């Protein structure tokens, strides 16, 4: 088990190298002279261009630049914003908990809604519960997240005024305040995750209930509860865990949009600001943090999968 986890950790290294070089090479995609473009285009003052050039060491060969950038990133130095001159790493460390809180809250909503729905619908395919759940998940997969967010805002914030339509209170400042401002964004993201989870879990439960080992469980006199929970669900959970891992990545990406709509000062809005201002270090910094976070979650998912699936555990 421990050996397996270590091996899995080791396998992250080459992937991280390739991904980080991709992030770095965003620079190479910049059209024209990067220094000019990043400094604000053709009207940029020569001083601004020179500043960008020196700060990003654009005169060095690309490989040297990458080596320096990677070395700095490894010790937590992601450079300074071209726009404000602030340390990118510090900004990220301030904003990261905000996004993390949102993602965790959304994941919880997704699990709390998606799992019961998926089970109920998988156990009784064809019934009303199932029809409702399928309608919900089909819709959830088709509706753009930001549109859902807007609808939720106009209903719960504008019309009924239950939740604030935007703004953010830190969890350490006031838990209730945090809860209030995180609810709508978390529900928005969570419902989309729930739609996928419910759908996958339904299919997995239907499949599991149709297996020979479930027939064996009935044949030995199993109660409905033991057959469903002990025999079917544990096996049905395996594919769903993988899907959930993928969904966490999806959450991270969608958080960018939702943070924008609800004006939440997280990583997403930081990145978006960086994008509009052509602030390359900010974009690169947030991207690499997102990548590391995503790889970390998929690592966790793999480990829990190992725990669920004895075949992987022993092999």
């Amino acid at each position, binding site marked *: 088990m421990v*050996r397996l986890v270590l*091996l899995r950790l080791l396998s992250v290294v080459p992937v991280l190298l390739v991904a980080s070089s991709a992030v770095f090479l965003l620079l190479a995609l910049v059209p024209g002279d990067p220094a000019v473009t990043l400094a604000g285009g053709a009207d940029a003052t020569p001083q601004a261009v020179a500043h960008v050039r020196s700060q990003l060491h654009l005169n060095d060969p690309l490989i040297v630049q990458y080596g320096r950038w990677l070395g700095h990133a490894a010790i937590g130095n992601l450079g300074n914003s071209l726009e404000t001159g602030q340390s990118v790493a510090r900004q990220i460390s301030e904003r990261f908990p905000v996004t993390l809180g949102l993602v965790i809250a959304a994941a919880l909503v997704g699990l709390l809604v998606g799992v019961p729905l998926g089970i109920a619908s998988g156990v009784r395919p064809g019934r009303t519960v199932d029809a409702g759940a399928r309608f919900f998940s089909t819709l959830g997969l088709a509706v753009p997240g930001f549109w859902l967010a807007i609808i939720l805002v106009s209903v719960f914030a504008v019309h009924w005024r239950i939740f604030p339509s935007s703004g953010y209170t830190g969890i350490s400042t006031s838990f209730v305040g945090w809860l209030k401002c995180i609810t709508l964004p978390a529900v928005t993201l969570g419902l989309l995750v729930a739609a996928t989870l419910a759908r996958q879990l339904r299919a997995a439960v239907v499949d599991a209930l149709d297996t020979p080992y479930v027939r064996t469980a009935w044949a030995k006199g199993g109660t409905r509860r033991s057959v469903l929970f002990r025999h079917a669900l544990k096996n049905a959970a395996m594919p769903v865990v993988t899907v959930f891992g993928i969904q966490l990545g999806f959450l991270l990406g969608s958080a960018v949009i939702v943070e924008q709509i609800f004006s939440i000062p997280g990583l997403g809005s930081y990145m978006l600001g960086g994008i509009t201002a052509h602030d390359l270090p900010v974009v690169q910094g947030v991207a690499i943090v997102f990548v590391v976070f995503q790889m970390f979650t998929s690592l966790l998912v793999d480990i829990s999968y190992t725990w669920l699936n004895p075949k992987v555990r*022993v*092999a």
Partner: protein
Amino acid sequence: MNHDAPDRPVAELRGVSCHFKVRIPGGRRGTVHALDDIDLVLTEGRTLGLVGESGSGKSTLARVLLRLLRPDRGQVLLASQDITETKGSALRQLRRHMQLVFQDPYSSFDPLATIESSIGEAISVHRELSRSGRAQRATELLDQVRLPSAFAHRRPREMSGGQLQRAAIARALATEPELLALDEPLSSLDIATQVQIVDLLHELQERLGIAYLFISHDLNLVRTLSHRTAVMYLGRIVEEGPVEQIYRDPGHPYTQALLSASPSLDPASRRRRIVLQGDIPSPVEPPTGCRFRTRCPLVTAICAEQEPPPVPVGGATVRCHHL
């Protein structure tokens, strides 16, 4: 059968071994001894039955014989020509002489292609024929296996297992091979269909003089179809000889156990069931000396130390220390 040259060898294995490197549970690497020191001759118009339990290396043997796999040691001969090292397009040129029929007829046909197109592929690789010429040849081949020509335009899932297995035989015949390896061709079929295919195979052999390598785990089937029989255990041939001698008077303790364990309808031919203990050991790092020693009722000290040499017994060859 061609009585003028009854023993003309079509293909031959000489001292063939085949090992694979695998990763075994726990992350270590091991070597699968799929085949070890195999000698075998296939003769024109004759059937060699190959029996053994799962994991004994029967399928690997067929694939080495057809040079779909390369042996690690030994020689593969096709009509006295050494083809062990042949590869690339030279090897593809030789493929027409030896064909293969698989266990699962559904998996052995492209589900998207019609039967005609699958058979046509086999025709076109070796013959320059127009489209209509190929279609006509395909119909002839289907006729040989007694399928109506309408089946040419069907897809695999529109056919039954037996029909598809006939089509598989037709495809194999398309290249006019001298050797046909049949890898458990009947084990996914119902008994009535089995009989029909057995009849067909027998008839084709009489007419075309093809040599068969007939692989099966069903001893009764091997008995009806083959002229000689080879018994495999864990990558080795433990006994080989004329079919009647092997079934009447098996020499190797494994053959004896296998025959006694195989159920028979005929109460007179039933033997006292010798029940072997345990399972076949893993072909990864198999037992030293005689591979059967871990389950053999006759085992003694020598069995672990020395590999038994081949001993001629009548027309057969047996590898056992205790004859």
